[in-house]
């Protein structure tokens, strides 16, 4: 057993677009950036948007296209959340890298502009202190260094940083684009994916292409080349729709013991409750037969339960509590308890 055979290379990496123009579905972004490539001049950039929409891909592609494989190592510094990015790293590692001056000079058809690029992936998980420290570095070395920030939530980037950057918002991918990418990979890998499975994949990935590809690869590993929608669901950890519906039905029945039983079986089947909560949230929010007040009551409880789970509370009790409150909301029982 070889440690890392080629087949185990994550498909996410394998099928990552190498060129900016190949980045799926982000037309405006691609247009602006292609322009940048032509002039070989670019500002600091901030890419934000939901996960799996091509932010990292874009940043890497630009870097590659600007410098080519040879200079890439010396000109580009990639840091993501799994690297230590405390304030010390910002003060030392980033600063050292940023401070080195570089010359220009074209090579093998790459523009090779006279600056370096620092890509900070998942920048929203950096502490505020670290971000503040970055601000100085950015100013000081802006002549020789460009920063690319990548984050999911722009609100978590401090304003001074955000205002120094050109901001690009990445939209969630549409189903068609996603399907076409997936089908492309299936063709390459020789997978057999029926249309039901394809649409399931689309819905569980929720516009996150990376997630879709990861699921696809996991399913392919576990179940071989012929993948059904059930396989995808079991790999993704998503709870089948009918389980969620059964839970809601039990809540609507206003029968506590039935709900208790339903909760028990969800736990016994090993479904992660945090996943259950987020799926419930979706169903509840989009349901038509639930009043706004009911929705509010249920959602409040969902949020509380989620927090408790993060703190390590017991899954069964939290889900049962959610069920109980949902039931009370459905039957419009008062929120206060009678015997308190």
């Amino acid at each position, binding site marked *: *057993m*070889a*440690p*890392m*055979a080629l*087949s*185990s290379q994550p498909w996410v990496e394998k099928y990552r677009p190498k060129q900016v123009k190949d980045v799926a579905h982000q037309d405006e972004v691609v247009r602006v950036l292609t322009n940048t490539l032509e002039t070989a001049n670019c500002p600091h950039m901030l890419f934000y948007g939901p996960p799996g929409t091509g932010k990292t891909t874009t940043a890497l592609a630009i870097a590659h296209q600007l410098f080519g494989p040879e200079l890439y190592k010396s000109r580009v510094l990639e840091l993501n*959340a*799994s*690297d230590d990015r405390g304030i010390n790293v910002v003060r030392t590692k980033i600063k050292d890298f940023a401070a080195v001056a570089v010359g220009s000079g074209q090579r093998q058809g790459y523009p090779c502009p006279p600056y370096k690029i620092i890509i900070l992936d998942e920048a929203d998980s950096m502490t505020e202190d670290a971000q503040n420290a970055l601000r100085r570095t950015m100013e000081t070395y802006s002549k020789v260094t460009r920063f690319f920030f990548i984050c999911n939530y722009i609100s978590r980037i401090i304003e001074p940083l955000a205002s120094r950057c050109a901001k690009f918002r990445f939209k969630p991918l549409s189903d068609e684009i996603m399907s076409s990418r997936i089908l492309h990979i299936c063709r390459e890998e020789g997978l057999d994916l029926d249309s039901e499975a394809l649409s399931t994949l689309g819905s569980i990935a929720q516009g996150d292409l990376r*997630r879709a590809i*990861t699921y696809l690869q*996991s399913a392919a*590993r*576990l*179940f*071989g080349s012929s993948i059904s929608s059930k396989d995808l669901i*079991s*790999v993704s*950890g998503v709870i089948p729709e009918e389980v969620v519906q059964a839970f809601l039905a039990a809540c609507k029945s206003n029968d*506590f013991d039935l709900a*208790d039983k339903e909760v028990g079986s969800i*736990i*016994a*089947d*090993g*479904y*992660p*409750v*945090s*996943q259950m909560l987020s799926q419930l949230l979706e169903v509840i929010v989009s349901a038509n037969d639930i009043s706004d007040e009911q929705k509010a009551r249920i959602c409040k409880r969902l949020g509380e*339960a989620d927090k*408790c*789970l993060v*703190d*390590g*509370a*017991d*899954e*069964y*009790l*939290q889900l*049962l*509590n959610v069920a*109980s*409150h949902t*039931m*009370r909301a459905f039957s419009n*029982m008062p929120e206060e*308890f*009678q*015997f*308190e």
Partner: protein
Amino acid sequence: MLWVDKYRPRTLDKIIVHDEIAQNLKKLVSEQDCPHLLFYGPPGSGKKTLIMALLKQMFGPGAEKVKLENKPWKIDAGSRTIELELTTLSSTHHIELNPSDAGFQDRYIVQEIIKDMAKIRPLDAKGKKGFKVLLLNQVDKLSREAQHSLRRTMEKYSASCRLILCCNSSSRVTEAIRSRCLNVRVNAPTHEQIVKVLEFIAKKESLQLPPGFAARIASQSNRNLRRAILSFETCRVQQYPFTANQAISPLDWEQYVSEIASDIMKEQSPKRLFLVRGKLYELLVNCIPPEIILKKLLSELLKKLDFELKHEVCHWAAYYEHKMRMGQKAIFHIEAFVAKFMSIYKSFLIATFG
């Protein structure tokens, strides 16, 4: 040897309950590589059995030759050196440990052991450097920091080691780890599957199984196969030949909890609360995990309650279980739940019967 151990399937092929998962796992490791794996599912569903069979599939019988080691670790954690002792179970191909035993120093342990493991890499059949498997139990009990550092080590040492993680609930495992592992959900066996296993054991032991008896054991087991087999064996010792309506003795601590529940229902006063506290202490001394006591107590109380009270009681149970996690001494919180229940129940009684 107990039946649970005696009839534990040793290879992936022999697995009855999760045969589908077993076959998939087989396919997975028969290929060139093996990704990191995360097994999750309720207790008694067969995670460990699957993992052990999987290890055997990967490494052959060598994986079964395990030795118990109590190894002291000296870890340099920046400003200070941490010394702790940790019990590990290891073969030439894998190491198993409960990182949560290390308490709040778990993150150092995880890093250090993986580093240590990476140094010595066994050779595989073709003379190439192979990898070792690190089996981590109860990863859901790892602290956030430890999980975070686990994620980094997973990437860093991916050439030399594979992780197999095992936990009860994947909710408590961070997304970052989950997304780097192949997730395997091991659901608890259904009643029918448990019956099937019991019948299989009965046949092997050449026991006469009256109709419906296995089903009764299964329904009492709460979909926990281990428990079903244990109580099956208890019944065998208790009385053989079996009769269809033979009593299946409950676990002593469960019986004790239901006694506590009826104590609570009978009288609601500080004095009674004190009595209940004494009984709770006894359960705690025997290392029954507090959250399990609380859950059992809740289910016993729910059995005896009217509809309207059930909501209220389950709300408080969830509330105090959460508090218990945040706090330090479980007894405070269980007791607070009992007190709250008494208070609610008393005012319910007054409202209903005056």
